[in-house]
């Protein structure tokens, strides 16, 4: 039986009076590629940010490999204006982690609007992401007593660049790469943190159809090669339908459908959300 990697229970994220994510529950099992889709502003990236602890969810629980990484319930001021569901279900404890702790546990992500380290070369970008698995401390690193580790880091970074096909560009500045290659570099950088779960936020945005085709093969390939579970947000339906094992659909922060690609394509609620169907 496949193990549960990520479990989101009744997650609600409310900013002031705006409910960006409303009672979202989902499960991702080991080795799956799961997609989260929905129209613009549906709360997909907000859901990602809650999982990676950039935001603290207002209510609900997020667990990774069975261990809660975020849990909260509305209190004080938020309690009065809380517009979500089940305000009393998660009051037993509060769990709050910082994004770097979540990454250390094994969740890596890419960003919708590319966030590479612009002042660094391609190789350095990848090596920076290996910093969290270092064994050296400040003194040994400063005095360059960790040459073995540094060398291993460099080698591993090169291997990763080779995997994503950027080896030839290792000494270029990261921001000088074309858009599609920057996206690949972001994935390579995320892989360098040795994740179990990889979150991809619109990996195909800004890519041409040919690059998009290559990307779907690429995502499948790295999933097998690095033993990953992949959670992806995307707008390109072709890509989603091709790679996903299961799809969750959100609209206005609420989950409106879940199922296999074939089921989602037939689902009237999804078609309504995307094409603007009749009022409910």
């Amino acid at each position: 039986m496949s193990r549960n990697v990520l479990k989101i229970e009744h997650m609600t994220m409310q900013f002031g009076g705006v409910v960006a994510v409303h009672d979202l529950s989902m499960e991702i099992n080991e080795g799956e590629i799961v997609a989260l889709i929905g129209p613009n502003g549906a709360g997909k990236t907000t859901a990602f940010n809650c999982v990676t602890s950039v935001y603290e969810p207002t209510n609900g629980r997020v667990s990774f490999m069975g261990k809660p990484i975020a849990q909260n319930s509305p209190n004080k001021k938020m309690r009065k204006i809380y517009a979500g569901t089940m305000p009393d279900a998660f009051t037993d404890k509060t769990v709050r982690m910082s994004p770097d702790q979540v990454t250390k546990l094994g969740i890596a992500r890419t960003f919708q609007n590319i966030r590479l380290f612009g002042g660094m070369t391609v190789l350095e970008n990848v090596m920076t992401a290996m910093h969290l698995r270092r064994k050296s401390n400040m003194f040994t690193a400063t005095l360059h007593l960790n040459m073995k580790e540094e060398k291993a880091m460099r080698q591993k970074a090169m291997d990763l660049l080779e995997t994503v096909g950027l080896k030839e560009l290792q000494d270029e500045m990261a921001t000088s790469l074309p858009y599609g290659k920057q996206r690949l570099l972001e994935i390579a950088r995320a892989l360098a943190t040795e994740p179990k779960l990889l979150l991809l936020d619109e990996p195909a945005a800004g890519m041409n159809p040919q690059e998009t085709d290559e990307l779907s093969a690429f995502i499948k390939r790295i999933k097998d090669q690095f033993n990953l579970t992949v959670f992806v947000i995307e707008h390109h339906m072709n890509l989603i339908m091709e790679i996903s094992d299961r799809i969750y659909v959100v609209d206005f922060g609420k989950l409106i459908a879940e199922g296999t690609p074939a089921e989602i394509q037939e689902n009237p609620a999804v078609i309504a959300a995307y094409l603007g169907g009749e009022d409910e």
Partner: protein
Amino acid sequence: MKTKKKFNPAMLWAALVIVLVYVAVFITEQLLPASSMLFTVLKKGATYALVAVSMNLLNGFTGLFSLGQAGFMLIGAYTYAIFTIPVADRMNVYQYYNGGLVQFAMPVVPALIMAGLAAALFAFLIGLPVLRLKSDYLAIATLGFAEIIRAIFQWNKLGALTNGSNILREFPTFNDFNIRNAEGEVTLYLSTLVPFLIAGVCIALIVMLINSTFGRSLRAIKDDEIAAEAMGINLFHHKQMSFCISSFFAGIGGAMLAMYQSTIQAKAFTSAMTYEILLIVVIGGIGSVTGSCISSFLFVACSEWWLRFLDQKQMIGNFEVPLLRNGFRLVVFSIIIMIVVLFFRQGIMGTKELPDLFKRKKKSQQEVKA
């Protein structure tokens, strides 16, 4: 593509240049009279270079805009002075405080390290609340800290330690590094080489840090905090580390300034001093250690030597040059700064380092050949 980079000629050239500078300093010191203005510039320049590089580590490489440098220099200078004044002279120096609290004297090198550690300790404590602030707020908070420290060190109640608002003196200075014979004549001048060595070792350590995996993380934080955090870099720990290390070396720089001046007084460590250092960093290029070093010597040479004539009446034949009077130097200085900021925002070096210069030269030569 070459993957093995065992031998890097640019690095070798850079090392050669540095060695040549040291040799040149050593030789000129033996030849020229010790009173030459050149040595004043070199000594103060070496001191400022270290402080500027330490500030660059914070502002240029970590992206933390801190203006507390003068405060940390003050702590370093006082720590050094307090621990090195010879016991015999303490009664004299601390004449209003019964010879002061500390009744022992340390050798110079441990005292320098103590100076750095004291500054780093203060940085650690200040950093706990302050490093959660962003950009401008951090600058204001650190500036405020420096001003407070300056006031506290002049506080009468701490006089047994800091000598209140009176000067501290009699501690070993750069001139004490000269080797003298039994008659007290100098046989070997080292008073300029030693500050170069101290600053050199410290700057080398900073460069090594910048080139390590920790340095990469600091640059990542500067480039994009959100991405750095998402890559598992603990923002607070790394900022705190950078802040403490920067302050450690600013403290040593302060101790060197004390050695250079031979007397110190807290009221000299004003925010104007921080601005001078900030200027050096900006002129040299934010994010370039080499730039900070070069520009600190240029800056000190201009302010102490080359532009001095602007402060005095100058006659060309019978014509008295207008505008030249006391303080005009600062006006010219401000204009230079404005020009740099407006037209040469990259500074002297941009983000390039010494070895990069040789790399580029080589490349352009190759292009010429081709």
